[in-house]
């Protein structure tokens, strides 16, 4: 178990829960309105899906890019710049929220009437829309806070916030829906955002908090944030457009009887949102490594994420292939003629889930690596163009089964097409992670569970390796070995009753050697030469700091990070 894997696995449950909660929150109003108010209310809520997707798009547009850029700047040890990004992220969230609010408020009447419905359904749409309006402002701000806390390593508070949002949204929506109908249900969404934001504020009072705001405003940074978010955030819009196209095509080709089966397929495709949890779990560490330029570690964390994506995709596909009835029960489909058709659809569509998991991972990863346009192209191709281009001809040729097969094939075709494009534009060596081989060769990484024996063994190993390497010299080798032993022993002493993991990386650049030590112990700044001296060891570390002027410390994503230029 490496330090990176340990951290990744700690983030993974909360990230997966957050994405699952997002999916459940999306479903909750349909379920509540459907059960309490019947078919008209359910139809009204479903018609609102493009509006909900637009608000989610605005929220992701501010939050995703801010968290990625924030982590990258922290990776570069640029805390002031990271805080500027965070501040601008908040401005961006407010501006996008205000813009979305204004647009949705101005065009509410006209847009609702363009849905082509009337009577109770139209009244329901208008009412839901009105009471959903506060979410246009609240959602971007709340999502920005969630992303920021997550980037700061507080997965627990994010899980709690989502739990609060899910529970608050469901409870308040249900209670208010009983009294005020669809308007009450819509108000519950705002309550969920307020509860989540309240929970997230707790993080700012924690000792481990490294988030902060500064006096800053830059429209150029807002543009960068939005550009960086585009790949991840546009998937909501692409998905909404795909579902609309799928509904229209299936109704035109096979008649309205197929709609319940399409609904089941949409539920399966919507489930893929959970796969975003893998990239979300990888993001805090990956962005820091990218900021540091530690491509060897980027490759390592990406391998873990690929393995988890593969396992998640394969397991979910196997589960749905074996038990398609799980999805049918969720949407309440039990008509004998439709059950077999829907079960077959679930089985076929689920074969594409492993591909979707990888597409989702690389969509986010390419964003972290500043290939936002490529990430955006992957979203557009995989979530809209490829399915559309495939299901129209296959549907015409093979009927319903052709459509489901097209949806299963789409992620693999998209991945292949984008991989071919990357190979053509940047060369085969760039595939799939855009890693710099020279940087990877210039980095060496060691993982360790702190203990006197392991620390001394590592110090000796590093010392011998450096002494044998051309251009380093015996003095630097010995100094590095000494610093490693003393620093790690100090960390161990400060966390006497805990099992501490550390990751040590050496980076060779020209004549210089950089040693970076990451540990998951209590927050402690090793690089502070004025720290209180309580032992001969801390005296030694303090003196070492005086002869190493180029040193930096930063607590990022819940771990200590100390870097020394030797």
């Amino acid at each position, binding site marked *: 178990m490496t330090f990176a894997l340990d951290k990744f696995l700690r983030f993974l449950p909360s990230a997966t829960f957050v994405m699952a909660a997002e999916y459940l929150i999306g479903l909750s109003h349909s379920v509540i309105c459907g059960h309490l108010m019947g078919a008209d209310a359910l139809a009204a809520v479903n018609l609102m899906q493009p509006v909900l997707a637009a608000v989610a798009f605005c929220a992701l547009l501010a939050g995703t890019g801010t968290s990625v850029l924030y982590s990258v700047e922290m990776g570069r040890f640029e805390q002031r710049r990271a805080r500027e990004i965070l501040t601008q992220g908040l401005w961006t969230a407010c501006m996008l929220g205000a813009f979305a609010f204004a647009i949705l408020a101005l065009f509410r009447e006209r847009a609702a009437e363009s849905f082509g419905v009337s009577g109770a359904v139209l009244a329901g749409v208008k009412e839901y829309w009105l009471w959903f309006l506060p979410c246009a402002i609240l959602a971007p701000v709340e999502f920005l806070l969630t992303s920021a806390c997550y980037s700061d390593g507080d997965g627990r508070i994010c899980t709690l916030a989502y739990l609060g949002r899910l529970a608050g949204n469901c409870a308040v929506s249900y209670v208010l829906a009983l009294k005020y109908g669809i308007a009450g249900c819509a108000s519950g969404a705002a309550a969920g955002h307020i509860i989540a934001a309240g929970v997230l504020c707790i993080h700012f009072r924690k000792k481990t908090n490294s988030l902060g705001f500064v006096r800053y405003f830059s429209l150029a940074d807002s543009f960068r944030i939005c550009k960086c978010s585009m790949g991840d955030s546009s998937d909501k819009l692409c998905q909404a457009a795909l579902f609309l196209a799928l509904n229209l095509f299936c109704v035109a080709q096979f008649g309205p009887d197929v709609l319940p089966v399409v609904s089941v397929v949409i539920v399966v495709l919507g489930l893929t949102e959970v796969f975003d949890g893998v990239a979300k779990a990888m993001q805090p560490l990956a962005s820091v490594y990218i900021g540091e330029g530690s491509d060897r570690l980027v490759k390592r964390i990406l391998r873990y994420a690929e393995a988890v994506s593969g396992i998640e995709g394969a397991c979910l596909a196997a589960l749905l292939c074996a038990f398609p009835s799980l999805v049918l029960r969720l949407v309440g489909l039990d008509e004998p003629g439709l059950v077999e058709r829907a079960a077959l659809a679930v089985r076929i569509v689920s074969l594409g889930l492993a591909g979707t998991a990888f597409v989702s991972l690389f969509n986010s990863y390419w964003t972290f690596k500043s290939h936002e346009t490529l990430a955006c192209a992957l979203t557009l191709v995989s979530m809209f163009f490829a399915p559309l281009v495939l299901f129209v001809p296959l549907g015409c040729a093979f009927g319903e089964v052709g459509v489901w097969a097209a949806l299963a094939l789409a992620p693999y075709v998209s991945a292949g097409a984008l991989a071919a494009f990357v190979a053509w534009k940047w060369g085969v060596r760039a595939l799939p992670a855009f890693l710099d081989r020279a940087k990877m060769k210039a980095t060496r990484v060691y993982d360790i569970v702190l203990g*006197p*024996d392991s*620390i*001394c063994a590592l*110090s*000796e190993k590093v*010392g011998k390796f450096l002494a044998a390497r051309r251009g380093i010299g*015996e*003095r630097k080798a*010995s*100094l590095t*070995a*000494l610093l490693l*032993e*003393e620093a790690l*022993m100090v960390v161990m002493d400060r966390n006497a009753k805990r099992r501490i993991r550390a990751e040590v990386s050496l980076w060779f650049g020209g004549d210089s050697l950089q040693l970076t030590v990451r540990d998951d112990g209590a927050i402690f700044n090793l690089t502070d030469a004025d720290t209180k001296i309580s*032992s*001969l*060891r801390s*005296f*030694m570390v303090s*003196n*070492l700091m005086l*002869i190493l002027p180029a040193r930096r410390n930063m607590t990022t994503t819940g771990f200590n990070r100390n870097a020394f230029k030797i």
Partner: protein
Amino acid sequence: MQITKTITDGKMILALEGRVDTVTAPELERALQLDGVKELTLDFAKVPYMSSAGLRCLLAAHKTMLAQGGRMQLTSVSPTVREVLDMTGFSVFLDIA
């Protein structure tokens, strides 16, 4: 770490070989039984590396020798170990040949 100990007429010579670090320093500590020793020589010719754990042993030995009115000397100290002694100020009060 290997320690070769020679004692003759109140003179102790410890020839050290290998790293003096957190793990090996207790061996040095055990070897430094200084009862009745008037002159202590620590041969560092084959010591390429010493950490604060080694310094602690040297400090304890220095204090004992001072209390006994004896003398302690470090010989053949390598440049890397010398840098550690200089950095911590130990070279000011230790006798380094």
